[in-house]
Protein backbone atom coordinates (compact mmCIF):
# COMPACT_ATOMS: atom_id res chain seq x y z
CA UNK A 1 0.00 0.00 0.00
CA UNK A 2 1.88 3.03 -1.22
CA UNK A 3 2.39 6.09 0.87
CA UNK A 4 1.10 8.15 -2.03
CA UNK A 5 -2.42 6.88 -1.43
CA UNK A 6 -2.47 8.17 2.11
CA UNK A 7 -0.90 11.49 1.17
CA UNK A 8 -3.01 12.08 -1.91
CA UNK A 9 -6.04 12.51 0.29
CA UNK A 10 -5.09 16.09 0.80
CA UNK A 11 -5.32 16.90 -2.88
CA UNK A 12 -8.63 15.15 -3.47
CA UNK A 13 -11.61 16.98 -4.90
CA UNK A 14 -14.87 17.56 -3.12
CA UNK A 15 -17.44 14.83 -3.81
CA UNK A 16 -21.12 14.54 -3.00
CA UNK A 17 -21.38 12.80 0.35
CA UNK A 18 -18.20 14.34 1.73
CA UNK A 19 -18.15 16.42 4.82
CA UNK A 20 -16.43 19.76 4.36
CA UNK A 21 -15.45 22.57 6.66
CA UNK A 22 -16.70 25.95 5.47
CA UNK A 23 -14.42 28.64 6.76
CA UNK A 24 -15.15 32.32 6.68
CA UNK A 25 -12.36 34.19 8.47
CA UNK A 26 -12.24 32.49 11.86
CA UNK A 27 -15.69 30.98 11.73
CA UNK A 28 -15.71 27.32 10.77
CA UNK A 29 -18.62 25.02 10.23
CA UNK A 30 -19.00 21.36 9.34
CA UNK A 31 -21.32 20.56 6.48
CA UNK A 32 -22.26 17.47 4.54
CA UNK A 33 -22.29 18.03 0.79
CA UNK A 34 -25.41 16.86 -1.02
CA UNK A 35 -26.43 17.34 -4.65
CA UNK A 36 -28.10 20.72 -4.23
CA UNK A 37 -26.73 21.81 -0.87
CA UNK A 38 -27.29 25.09 0.79
CA UNK A 39 -25.36 26.00 3.86
CA UNK A 40 -26.21 28.76 6.25
CA UNK A 41 -23.49 30.81 7.82
CA UNK A 42 -25.16 32.92 10.44
CA UNK A 43 -27.93 34.74 8.57
CA UNK A 44 -26.39 34.19 5.13
CA UNK A 45 -27.39 31.34 2.86
CA UNK A 46 -24.76 29.90 0.53
CA UNK A 47 -25.34 27.81 -2.58
CA UNK A 48 -22.70 25.12 -2.50
CA UNK A 49 -23.06 23.40 -5.87
CA UNK A 50 -20.01 25.15 -7.34
CA UNK A 51 -17.65 23.51 -4.87
CA UNK A 52 -18.36 19.95 -6.04
CA UNK A 53 -15.47 18.62 -8.09
CA UNK A 54 -13.09 21.34 -7.03
CA UNK A 55 -10.11 20.70 -4.76
CA UNK A 56 -10.16 21.34 -1.06
CA UNK A 57 -8.59 24.60 0.08
CA UNK A 58 -10.16 26.53 -2.81
CA UNK A 59 -11.37 29.99 -1.88
CA UNK A 60 -14.66 31.32 -3.20
CA UNK A 61 -16.11 34.81 -3.33
CA UNK A 62 -19.67 35.19 -2.15
CA UNK A 63 -21.65 36.95 -4.84
CA UNK A 64 -24.89 38.35 -3.62
CA UNK A 65 -28.14 37.34 -5.28
CA UNK A 66 -30.09 39.54 -2.93
CA UNK A 67 -31.85 38.80 0.36
CA UNK A 68 -28.76 37.31 2.01
CA UNK A 69 -28.49 34.54 -0.58
CA UNK A 70 -25.09 34.01 -2.18
CA UNK A 71 -23.55 32.13 -5.03
CA UNK A 72 -19.98 30.91 -4.67
CA UNK A 73 -17.49 31.85 -7.36
CA UNK A 74 -13.99 30.46 -7.38
CA UNK A 75 -11.26 33.01 -6.92
CA UNK A 76 -7.57 33.17 -6.24
CA UNK A 77 -7.59 34.24 -2.68
CA UNK A 78 -9.33 36.37 -0.12
CA UNK A 79 -8.63 40.07 -0.07
CA UNK A 80 -8.54 41.76 3.23
CA UNK A 81 -11.16 44.49 3.58
CA UNK A 82 -9.03 46.25 6.12
CA UNK A 83 -6.08 46.45 3.81
CA UNK A 84 -8.15 47.65 0.88
CA UNK A 85 -9.80 50.47 2.75
CA UNK A 86 -7.02 51.69 5.01
CA UNK A 87 -4.81 52.73 2.11
CA UNK A 88 -5.46 56.46 1.77
CA UNK A 89 -7.02 57.22 5.08
CA UNK A 90 -5.81 59.82 7.54
CA UNK A 91 -5.81 59.03 11.22
CA UNK A 92 -5.56 60.85 14.53
CA UNK A 93 -3.17 60.34 17.42
CA UNK A 94 -5.40 59.61 20.43
CA UNK A 95 -9.03 59.62 21.54
CA UNK A 96 -9.20 62.80 23.60
CA UNK A 97 -11.64 64.45 21.21
CA UNK A 98 -13.79 61.45 20.38
CA UNK A 99 -17.11 61.39 22.22
CA UNK A 100 -19.01 58.12 22.24
CA UNK A 101 -22.56 59.36 21.80
CA UNK A 102 -23.81 56.65 19.40
CA UNK A 103 -24.31 59.33 16.77
CA UNK A 104 -21.09 58.94 14.82
CA UNK A 105 -22.71 56.87 12.05
CA UNK A 106 -25.14 58.95 10.04
CA UNK A 107 -26.60 56.04 8.08
CA UNK A 108 -29.63 54.56 9.83
CA UNK A 109 -30.02 50.87 10.63
CA UNK A 110 -32.66 50.44 7.93
CA UNK A 111 -30.44 52.09 5.35
CA UNK A 112 -27.58 49.74 6.19
CA UNK A 113 -29.85 46.70 6.00
CA UNK A 114 -31.03 48.00 2.66
CA UNK A 115 -27.44 48.20 1.40
CA UNK A 116 -26.90 44.61 2.46
CA UNK A 117 -30.05 43.28 0.85
CA UNK A 118 -29.30 45.08 -2.38
CA UNK A 119 -26.35 42.76 -2.99
CA UNK A 120 -23.61 45.38 -2.75
CA UNK A 121 -20.17 43.94 -2.10
CA UNK A 122 -18.79 43.92 1.43
CA UNK A 123 -16.09 46.35 0.49
CA UNK A 124 -18.60 48.85 -0.87
CA UNK A 125 -20.81 48.64 2.17
CA UNK A 126 -17.97 49.22 4.60
CA UNK A 127 -16.71 52.03 2.38
CA UNK A 128 -20.15 53.66 2.74
CA UNK A 129 -20.03 53.20 6.51
CA UNK A 130 -16.66 54.92 6.72
CA UNK A 131 -17.77 57.80 4.51
CA UNK A 132 -20.76 58.37 6.73
CA UNK A 133 -18.83 58.19 9.98
CA UNK A 134 -17.96 61.45 11.68
CA UNK A 135 -15.24 60.07 13.88
CA UNK A 136 -13.44 57.53 11.71
CA UNK A 137 -10.70 59.87 10.57
CA UNK A 138 -9.96 61.02 14.12
CA UNK A 139 -9.26 57.51 15.33
CA UNK A 140 -5.70 56.26 15.70
CA UNK A 141 -4.35 53.77 13.17
CA UNK A 142 -4.78 50.90 15.62
CA UNK A 143 -8.36 51.94 16.35
CA UNK A 144 -9.15 52.22 12.63
CA UNK A 145 -7.76 48.76 11.97
CA UNK A 146 -9.77 47.37 14.86
CA UNK A 147 -12.93 49.02 13.47
CA UNK A 148 -12.30 47.63 10.01
CA UNK A 149 -11.58 44.14 11.33
CA UNK A 150 -14.83 44.26 13.26
CA UNK A 151 -16.74 45.28 10.13
CA UNK A 152 -14.86 42.71 8.15
CA UNK A 153 -16.17 40.01 10.43
CA UNK A 154 -19.68 40.96 9.42
CA UNK A 155 -19.15 41.71 5.76
CA UNK A 156 -16.32 39.40 4.80
CA UNK A 157 -17.23 37.82 1.52
CA UNK A 158 -14.75 35.01 1.01
CA UNK A 159 -15.12 31.42 2.12
CA UNK A 160 -12.59 28.63 1.95
CA UNK A 161 -13.66 25.02 1.69
CA UNK A 162 -11.39 22.91 3.82
CA UNK A 163 -11.00 19.22 4.35
CA UNK A 164 -12.04 18.11 7.83
CA UNK A 165 -9.13 17.04 9.98
CA UNK A 166 -9.15 15.82 13.55
CA UNK A 167 -7.99 19.22 14.71
CA UNK A 168 -10.72 21.11 12.85
CA UNK A 169 -13.50 18.71 13.76
CA UNK A 170 -12.63 18.70 17.46
CA UNK A 171 -12.38 22.50 17.56
CA UNK A 172 -15.72 22.94 15.83
CA UNK A 173 -17.50 20.42 18.04
CA UNK A 174 -16.04 21.86 21.22
CA UNK A 175 -17.00 25.36 20.22
CA UNK A 176 -20.54 24.49 19.14
CA UNK A 177 -21.59 22.39 22.09
CA UNK A 178 -18.94 21.12 24.49
CA UNK A 179 -21.51 19.38 26.67
CA UNK A 180 -22.36 17.04 23.80
CA UNK A 181 -18.79 15.83 23.69
CA UNK A 182 -18.29 15.57 27.44
CA UNK A 183 -16.08 18.67 27.46
CA UNK A 184 -13.41 16.79 25.55
CA UNK A 185 -11.17 19.69 24.54
CA UNK A 186 -8.64 19.20 21.77
CA UNK A 187 -5.56 19.19 23.98
CA UNK A 188 -7.09 16.47 26.13
CA UNK A 189 -7.88 14.46 23.00
CA UNK A 190 -4.24 14.71 22.02
CA UNK A 191 -3.17 13.58 25.51
CA UNK A 192 -5.48 10.58 25.33
CA UNK A 193 -4.29 9.35 21.95
CA UNK A 194 -0.64 9.78 22.95
CA UNK A 195 -1.12 8.10 26.33
CA UNK A 196 -2.84 5.20 24.60
CA UNK A 197 0.35 4.84 22.58
CA UNK A 198 -1.25 4.15 19.24
CA UNK A 199 0.89 2.09 16.87
CA UNK A 200 -0.35 1.67 13.35
CA UNK A 201 -0.39 -2.12 13.64
CA UNK A 202 -1.83 -2.49 17.11
CA UNK A 203 -5.27 -3.46 18.35
CA UNK A 204 -7.11 -1.11 20.66
CA UNK A 205 -10.33 -0.97 22.60
CA UNK A 206 -12.15 2.29 23.13
CA UNK A 207 -15.27 2.36 25.26
CA UNK A 208 -17.16 5.46 24.36
CA UNK A 209 -20.57 6.57 25.47
CA UNK A 210 -21.70 10.01 24.59
CA UNK A 211 -19.15 12.14 22.89
CA UNK A 212 -20.43 11.88 19.34
CA UNK A 213 -17.75 9.48 18.28
CA UNK A 214 -14.98 12.01 18.79
CA UNK A 215 -12.66 9.76 20.79
CA UNK A 216 -13.26 6.96 18.30
CA UNK A 217 -12.50 9.28 15.39
CA UNK A 218 -9.29 10.44 17.05
CA UNK A 219 -8.00 6.93 17.64
CA UNK A 220 -9.01 5.76 14.18
CA UNK A 221 -7.20 8.76 12.74
CA UNK A 222 -3.86 7.70 14.18
CA UNK A 223 -4.45 4.01 13.65
CA UNK A 224 -4.04 3.97 9.89
CA UNK A 225 -5.18 0.97 7.94
CA UNK A 226 -3.30 -1.94 9.51
CA UNK A 227 -4.50 -1.84 13.07
CA UNK A 228 -7.84 -2.66 14.64
CA UNK A 229 -10.08 -0.51 16.76
CA UNK A 230 -12.89 -2.06 18.74
CA UNK A 231 -15.42 0.54 19.76
CA UNK A 232 -17.50 -0.70 22.67
CA UNK A 233 -20.64 1.20 23.51
CA UNK A 234 -23.79 0.88 25.57
CA UNK A 235 -27.05 0.86 23.66
CA UNK A 236 -27.73 -0.35 20.17
CA UNK A 237 -26.52 2.48 18.03
CA UNK A 238 -23.10 4.04 18.53
CA UNK A 239 -22.70 7.80 18.18
CA UNK A 240 -20.76 8.41 15.02
CA UNK A 241 -20.94 12.05 14.00
CA UNK A 242 -17.23 12.77 14.34
CA UNK A 243 -16.27 9.54 12.59
CA UNK A 244 -18.47 10.41 9.61
CA UNK A 245 -17.17 13.97 9.51
CA UNK A 246 -13.61 12.75 9.01
CA UNK A 247 -14.37 11.30 5.55
CA UNK A 248 -12.40 8.14 6.30
CA UNK A 249 -12.26 5.97 3.22
CA UNK A 250 -13.98 2.56 3.36
CA UNK A 251 -10.76 0.56 3.79
CA UNK A 252 -9.80 2.64 6.79
CA UNK A 253 -13.30 2.50 8.23
CA UNK A 254 -13.30 -1.28 7.98
CA UNK A 255 -10.74 -1.34 10.78
CA UNK A 256 -13.37 -0.01 13.16
CA UNK A 257 -15.63 -2.57 14.78
CA UNK A 258 -18.50 -1.14 16.84
CA UNK A 259 -20.12 -3.48 19.33
CA UNK A 260 -22.53 -3.30 22.19
CA UNK A 261 -20.84 -4.01 25.51
CA UNK A 262 -23.31 -6.59 26.77
CA UNK A 263 -23.43 -8.52 23.51
CA UNK A 264 -19.67 -8.66 23.36
CA UNK A 265 -19.14 -9.81 26.90
CA UNK A 266 -21.92 -12.36 26.64
CA UNK A 267 -20.46 -13.78 23.45
CA UNK A 268 -16.97 -13.96 24.91
CA UNK A 269 -17.93 -15.68 28.12
CA UNK A 270 -20.17 -18.32 26.61
CA UNK A 271 -17.60 -21.09 26.19
CA UNK A 272 -19.99 -23.38 24.27
CA UNK A 273 -20.29 -21.16 21.25
CA UNK A 274 -16.61 -20.34 21.21
CA UNK A 275 -14.86 -22.76 18.83
CA UNK A 276 -17.41 -23.28 16.07
CA UNK A 277 -16.40 -20.88 13.38
CA UNK A 278 -17.29 -23.39 10.66
CA UNK A 279 -21.06 -23.84 11.11
CA UNK A 280 -21.35 -20.13 11.75
CA UNK A 281 -20.29 -19.44 8.17
CA UNK A 282 -23.42 -21.09 6.74
CA UNK A 283 -25.60 -18.74 8.68
CA UNK A 284 -23.50 -15.67 7.99
CA UNK A 285 -25.88 -14.18 5.50
CA UNK A 286 -28.82 -14.56 7.87
CA UNK A 287 -27.20 -12.91 10.85
CA UNK A 288 -27.92 -9.29 11.53
CA UNK A 289 -25.06 -6.88 11.03
CA UNK A 290 -24.61 -6.16 14.73
CA UNK A 291 -24.13 -9.85 15.45
CA UNK A 292 -21.54 -10.19 12.68
CA UNK A 293 -19.61 -7.27 14.09
CA UNK A 294 -19.78 -8.70 17.60
CA UNK A 295 -18.44 -12.01 16.32
CA UNK A 296 -15.63 -10.22 14.53
CA UNK A 297 -14.66 -8.41 17.72
CA UNK A 298 -14.98 -11.54 19.82
CA UNK A 299 -12.73 -13.48 17.43
CA UNK A 300 -10.10 -10.74 17.70
CA UNK A 301 -10.24 -10.71 21.48
CA UNK A 302 -10.12 -14.46 21.91
CA UNK A 303 -6.80 -14.69 20.11
CA UNK A 304 -4.93 -11.82 21.65
CA UNK A 305 -4.92 -9.09 24.20
CA UNK A 306 -5.16 -5.49 23.13
CA UNK A 307 -2.36 -2.92 23.04
CA UNK A 308 -4.30 -0.13 24.69
CA UNK A 309 -7.56 0.46 26.55
CA UNK A 310 -9.28 3.84 26.42
CA UNK A 311 -12.46 4.64 28.30
CA UNK A 312 -14.40 7.83 27.65
CA UNK A 313 -17.65 7.29 29.49
CA UNK A 314 -20.50 9.36 30.76
CA UNK A 315 -21.19 6.58 33.21
CA UNK A 316 -19.26 5.97 36.39
CA UNK A 317 -16.17 4.28 34.97
CA UNK A 318 -15.16 1.85 37.72
CA UNK A 319 -17.12 -1.23 36.67
CA UNK A 320 -16.38 -0.63 32.99
CA UNK A 321 -12.65 -0.49 33.68
CA UNK A 322 -12.78 -3.68 35.75
CA UNK A 323 -14.75 -5.49 33.08
CA UNK A 324 -12.40 -4.50 30.25
CA UNK A 325 -9.00 -4.66 31.96
CA UNK A 326 -8.74 -8.44 31.49
CA UNK A 327 -8.51 -7.82 27.73
CA UNK A 328 -5.46 -5.59 28.03
CA UNK A 329 -1.97 -7.04 27.52
CA UNK A 330 0.67 -6.41 30.16
CA UNK A 331 3.01 -3.45 29.84
CA UNK A 332 0.28 -1.60 27.93
CA UNK A 333 -1.57 1.57 28.91
CA UNK A 334 -5.06 2.13 30.24
CA UNK A 335 -6.49 5.63 29.82
CA UNK A 336 -9.71 6.82 31.44
CA UNK A 337 -11.26 10.20 30.70
CA UNK A 338 -13.88 11.95 32.74
CA UNK A 339 -15.26 15.46 32.55
CA UNK A 340 -15.24 15.64 36.34
CA UNK A 341 -12.55 14.57 38.72
CA UNK A 342 -14.29 12.56 41.47
CA UNK A 343 -14.92 9.29 39.63
CA UNK A 344 -11.27 9.21 38.69
CA UNK A 345 -10.17 9.73 42.27
CA UNK A 346 -12.12 6.65 43.33
CA UNK A 347 -10.81 4.71 40.37
CA UNK A 348 -7.24 5.71 41.20
CA UNK A 349 -7.55 4.19 44.66
CA UNK A 350 -9.26 1.06 43.40
CA UNK A 351 -6.63 0.43 40.76
CA UNK A 352 -3.82 1.17 43.15
CA UNK A 353 -5.09 -1.36 45.64
CA UNK A 354 -5.32 -4.01 42.90
CA UNK A 355 -1.56 -3.74 42.62
CA UNK A 356 -1.26 -4.47 38.92
CA UNK A 357 -1.52 -0.98 37.47
CA UNK A 358 1.61 1.12 37.89
CA UNK A 359 2.47 4.70 37.10
CA UNK A 360 -1.06 5.86 37.86
CA UNK A 361 -1.43 9.55 37.15
CA UNK A 362 -4.45 11.82 37.28
CA UNK A 363 -3.87 14.89 35.13
CA UNK A 364 -5.64 17.92 33.79
CA UNK A 365 -4.30 20.22 31.09
CA UNK A 366 -4.92 23.88 30.53
CA UNK A 367 -5.10 25.43 27.11
CA UNK A 368 -4.60 29.07 26.49
CA UNK A 369 -4.53 30.87 23.16
CA UNK A 370 -2.80 34.13 22.41
CA UNK A 371 -3.45 37.11 20.21
CA UNK A 372 -0.36 37.75 18.13
CA UNK A 373 -0.10 41.21 16.61
CA UNK A 374 2.82 43.63 16.50
CA UNK A 375 2.99 45.47 19.84
CA UNK A 376 -0.28 43.87 20.86
CA UNK A 377 0.56 40.26 21.63
CA UNK A 378 -1.04 38.93 24.76
CA UNK A 379 -2.99 35.91 26.01
CA UNK A 380 -6.65 35.95 25.10
CA UNK A 381 -8.79 37.35 27.87
CA UNK A 382 -11.03 34.30 28.16
CA UNK A 383 -9.71 30.79 28.67
CA UNK A 384 -11.63 27.55 28.53
CA UNK A 385 -12.47 26.46 32.04
CA UNK A 386 -12.23 22.75 31.74
CA UNK A 387 -11.04 20.17 29.27
CA UNK A 388 -11.72 17.25 31.53
CA UNK A 389 -9.44 14.95 33.47
CA UNK A 390 -7.42 11.93 32.48
CA UNK A 391 -6.26 8.94 34.48
CA UNK A 392 -3.45 6.88 32.94
CA UNK A 393 -1.55 3.83 34.08
CA UNK A 394 0.31 0.79 32.79
CA UNK A 395 -0.87 -2.76 33.40
CA UNK A 396 1.71 -5.15 34.79
CA UNK A 397 1.92 -8.68 36.11
CA UNK A 398 -0.48 -9.34 38.96
CA UNK A 399 1.13 -9.50 42.38
CA UNK A 400 -0.52 -12.75 43.43
CA UNK A 401 0.60 -14.83 40.49
CA UNK A 402 3.71 -15.48 38.46
CA UNK A 403 1.66 -16.01 35.33
CA UNK A 404 1.05 -13.06 33.08
Amino acid at each position, binding site marked *: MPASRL*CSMSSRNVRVGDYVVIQRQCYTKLHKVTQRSMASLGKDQLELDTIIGKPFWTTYKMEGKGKRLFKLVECDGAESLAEQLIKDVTSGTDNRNIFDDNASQSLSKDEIVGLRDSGLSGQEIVGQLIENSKTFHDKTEYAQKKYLLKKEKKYFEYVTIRKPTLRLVSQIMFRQDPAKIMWLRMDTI*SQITTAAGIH*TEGTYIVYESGCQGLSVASMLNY*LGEDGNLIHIHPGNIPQKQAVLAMNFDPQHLSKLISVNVYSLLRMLFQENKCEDDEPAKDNLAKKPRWEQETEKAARLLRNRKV*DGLVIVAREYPASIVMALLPFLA*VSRPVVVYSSVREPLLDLYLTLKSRGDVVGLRLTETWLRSHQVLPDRSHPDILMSGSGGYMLTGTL*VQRRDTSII
Partner: protein
Amino acid sequence: MSFANFKDTIDEGDTAILYLSANSMHAIEVRPKIKNKKDELIENVFQTTYGALKVRDLIGKKYGSKVELSRGWAYVLHPTPELWTLTLPHRTQIIYTPDISLIIFQLEIRPGSVVVESGTGSGSLSHALLRCIKPQGHLHTFDFHSHRVLLAQEEFANHGVAEFVTVAQRDVCEIGFGEELKGKADAVFLDLPHPWEAVEHAADVIKESGE
Protein backbone atom coordinates in the same frame (compact mmCIF):
# COMPACT_ATOMS: atom_id res chain seq x y z
CA MET B 1 13.02 -4.18 17.62
CA SER B 2 11.79 -2.57 20.80
CA PHE B 3 10.42 0.74 19.53
CA ALA B 4 9.30 -0.44 16.13
CA ASN B 5 6.58 -2.78 17.31
CA PHE B 6 5.32 -4.44 20.44
CA LYS B 7 6.97 -7.66 21.57
CA ASP B 8 6.23 -10.04 24.40
CA THR B 9 9.71 -11.08 25.44
CA ILE B 10 12.95 -9.24 26.07
CA ASP B 11 15.74 -10.02 23.64
CA GLU B 12 19.39 -9.09 23.83
CA GLY B 13 19.91 -5.60 22.42
CA ASP B 14 16.44 -4.34 23.39
CA THR B 15 15.99 -1.22 25.45
CA ALA B 16 13.86 -2.12 28.45
CA ILE B 17 12.46 0.25 31.05
CA LEU B 18 13.10 -0.73 34.67
CA TYR B 19 10.21 0.65 36.71
CA LEU B 20 10.96 1.03 40.43
CA SER B 21 8.35 3.65 41.24
CA ALA B 22 6.53 6.47 39.50
CA ASN B 23 9.48 8.77 40.08
CA SER B 24 12.20 6.22 39.54
CA MET B 25 12.55 4.62 36.13
CA HIS B 26 15.61 3.73 34.09
CA ALA B 27 16.13 2.80 30.47
CA ILE B 28 18.43 -0.20 30.27
CA GLU B 29 20.15 -1.47 27.16
CA VAL B 30 19.91 -5.23 27.56
CA ARG B 31 23.45 -6.47 27.04
CA PRO B 32 24.99 -9.18 29.26
CA LYS B 33 28.38 -7.50 29.28
CA ILE B 34 29.44 -3.87 29.01
CA LYS B 35 32.70 -2.02 28.75
CA ASN B 36 34.03 -0.35 31.88
CA LYS B 37 36.19 2.75 32.01
CA LYS B 38 39.30 0.73 31.21
CA ASP B 39 37.61 -0.63 28.07
CA GLU B 40 37.39 -4.15 29.52
CA LEU B 41 34.25 -6.23 29.11
CA ILE B 42 32.62 -6.86 32.47
CA GLU B 43 29.33 -8.31 33.69
CA ASN B 44 26.55 -5.76 33.24
CA VAL B 45 25.11 -5.07 36.70
CA PHE B 46 22.69 -2.17 37.22
CA GLN B 47 22.54 -0.69 40.73
CA THR B 48 19.31 0.68 42.17
CA THR B 49 18.04 1.71 45.59
CA TYR B 50 16.39 -1.71 45.83
CA GLY B 51 19.56 -3.56 45.04
CA ALA B 52 21.46 -4.80 42.04
CA LEU B 53 20.10 -6.22 38.79
CA LYS B 54 22.11 -8.61 36.65
CA VAL B 55 21.05 -7.28 33.27
CA ARG B 56 21.59 -10.66 31.58
CA ASP B 57 18.71 -12.03 33.69
CA LEU B 58 16.34 -9.79 31.79
CA ILE B 59 16.83 -11.74 28.56
CA GLY B 60 13.87 -14.02 28.03
CA LYS B 61 11.69 -12.34 30.61
CA LYS B 62 8.30 -11.06 29.57
CA TYR B 63 7.68 -7.34 29.34
CA GLY B 64 5.41 -6.29 32.17
CA SER B 65 6.72 -8.91 34.56
CA LYS B 66 8.32 -8.51 37.96
CA VAL B 67 12.09 -8.83 38.30
CA GLU B 68 13.93 -9.63 41.50
CA LEU B 69 16.62 -7.26 42.75
CA SER B 70 19.01 -8.02 45.55
CA ARG B 71 17.03 -5.95 48.07
CA GLY B 72 13.59 -5.91 46.51
CA TRP B 73 11.95 -6.02 43.12
CA ALA B 74 10.85 -3.91 40.18
CA TYR B 75 8.83 -4.19 36.97
CA VAL B 76 10.32 -4.24 33.51
CA LEU B 77 8.26 -2.41 30.92
CA HIS B 78 8.13 -2.29 27.15
CA PRO B 79 9.72 0.92 25.86
CA THR B 80 7.40 3.59 24.54
CA PRO B 81 8.13 7.16 23.44
CA GLU B 82 6.52 8.38 26.69
CA LEU B 83 8.76 6.23 28.88
CA TRP B 84 11.77 7.08 26.74
CA THR B 85 11.10 10.80 27.21
CA LEU B 86 11.24 10.27 30.97
CA THR B 87 14.40 8.18 30.96
CA LEU B 88 16.53 9.27 28.03
CA PRO B 89 19.95 10.82 28.54
CA HIS B 90 19.55 14.55 28.05
CA ARG B 91 21.89 16.25 25.63
CA THR B 92 19.65 19.31 25.41
CA GLN B 93 16.46 20.45 27.11
CA ILE B 94 13.76 18.11 25.86
CA ILE B 95 10.08 18.38 25.07
CA TYR B 96 7.82 16.44 27.43
CA THR B 97 4.77 14.33 26.66
CA PRO B 98 1.97 16.91 27.19
CA ASP B 99 3.56 19.27 24.67
CA ILE B 100 4.48 16.41 22.35
CA SER B 101 0.83 15.34 22.27
CA LEU B 102 -0.37 18.77 21.28
CA ILE B 103 2.37 19.18 18.68
CA ILE B 104 1.45 15.95 16.94
CA PHE B 105 -2.23 16.90 17.08
CA GLN B 106 -1.71 20.39 15.69
CA LEU B 107 0.64 19.25 12.93
CA GLU B 108 -2.16 16.99 11.68
CA ILE B 109 0.24 14.16 10.93
CA ARG B 110 -0.85 10.55 10.67
CA PRO B 111 0.51 7.22 9.46
CA GLY B 112 2.33 7.85 6.19
CA SER B 113 3.16 11.51 6.75
CA VAL B 114 6.53 12.96 5.85
CA VAL B 115 7.79 15.20 8.63
CA VAL B 116 10.74 17.57 8.81
CA GLU B 117 12.12 18.49 12.23
CA SER B 118 14.84 20.81 13.41
CA GLY B 119 16.62 20.68 15.80
CA THR B 120 16.80 17.06 16.75
CA GLY B 121 18.11 17.79 20.22
CA SER B 122 17.94 14.64 22.34
CA GLY B 123 15.33 12.91 20.19
CA SER B 124 12.42 13.08 22.62
CA LEU B 125 9.89 14.42 20.12
CA SER B 126 11.47 12.39 17.32
CA HIS B 127 10.52 9.07 18.89
CA ALA B 128 6.90 10.14 19.25
CA LEU B 129 6.80 11.45 15.67
CA LEU B 130 8.18 8.15 14.43
CA ARG B 131 5.55 6.09 16.20
CA CYS B 132 2.87 8.25 14.64
CA ILE B 133 4.03 8.14 11.02
CA LYS B 134 5.61 4.72 10.51
CA PRO B 135 5.79 2.42 8.63
CA GLN B 136 5.10 4.35 5.44
CA GLY B 137 6.01 7.80 6.63
CA HIS B 138 9.47 9.24 7.08
CA LEU B 139 11.09 11.72 9.46
CA HIS B 140 13.85 14.02 8.28
CA THR B 141 15.50 15.56 11.28
CA PHE B 142 18.34 18.08 11.40
CA ASP B 143 20.68 19.41 14.05
CA PHE B 144 23.72 21.63 13.62
CA HIS B 145 25.67 19.82 16.36
CA SER B 146 27.72 16.94 14.96
CA HIS B 147 27.90 14.89 18.19
CA ARG B 148 24.15 15.10 18.78
CA VAL B 149 23.54 13.94 15.22
CA LEU B 150 25.77 10.94 15.85
CA LEU B 151 24.11 10.03 19.14
CA ALA B 152 20.67 10.36 17.61
CA GLN B 153 21.61 8.08 14.72
CA GLU B 154 22.95 5.49 17.16
CA GLU B 155 19.83 5.61 19.28
CA PHE B 156 17.47 5.26 16.34
CA ALA B 157 19.50 2.28 15.14
CA ASN B 158 19.50 0.66 18.60
CA HIS B 159 15.76 1.18 18.84
CA GLY B 160 15.03 -0.46 15.52
CA VAL B 161 13.56 2.61 13.83
CA ALA B 162 16.50 3.68 11.65
CA GLU B 163 14.67 2.83 8.42
CA PHE B 164 12.02 5.45 9.13
CA VAL B 165 14.30 8.38 9.94
CA THR B 166 17.14 10.33 8.37
CA VAL B 167 19.31 12.40 10.69
CA ALA B 168 21.60 14.96 9.13
CA GLN B 169 23.87 17.67 10.33
CA ARG B 170 22.70 20.94 8.90
CA ASP B 171 22.19 24.54 9.95
CA VAL B 172 18.71 24.90 8.52
CA CYS B 173 18.51 28.62 9.25
CA GLU B 174 21.50 29.26 7.02
CA ILE B 175 21.01 26.84 4.15
CA GLY B 176 17.50 25.44 4.43
CA PHE B 177 16.54 21.78 4.28
CA GLY B 178 18.05 20.82 0.94
CA GLU B 179 16.84 20.51 -2.64
CA GLU B 180 15.61 16.90 -2.33
CA LEU B 181 13.05 17.85 0.30
CA LYS B 182 11.42 20.70 -1.60
CA GLY B 183 7.68 20.21 -1.74
CA LYS B 184 7.84 16.87 0.03
CA ALA B 185 6.84 17.49 3.64
CA ASP B 186 3.40 17.19 5.19
CA ALA B 187 4.57 19.05 8.25
CA VAL B 188 7.57 21.00 9.51
CA PHE B 189 8.44 21.42 13.16
CA LEU B 190 10.92 24.04 14.31
CA ASP B 191 12.42 24.19 17.79
CA LEU B 192 15.29 26.56 17.30
CA PRO B 193 16.83 29.60 18.97
CA HIS B 194 15.88 31.75 15.94
CA PRO B 195 12.99 29.98 14.25
CA TRP B 196 12.00 32.99 12.13
CA GLU B 197 15.17 32.52 10.11
CA ALA B 198 14.01 29.09 9.03
CA VAL B 199 10.44 30.00 8.15
CA GLU B 200 11.12 30.72 4.45
CA HIS B 201 13.01 27.46 4.11
CA ALA B 202 10.17 25.66 5.85
CA ALA B 203 7.67 27.06 3.37
CA ASP B 204 9.73 25.68 0.47
CA VAL B 205 9.70 22.22 1.92
CA ILE B 206 5.98 21.92 2.53
CA LYS B 207 3.76 20.18 0.00
CA GLU B 208 1.08 22.09 -1.81
CA SER B 209 -1.40 21.40 0.97
CA GLY B 210 0.35 20.79 4.25
CA GLU B 211 0.96 22.26 7.68
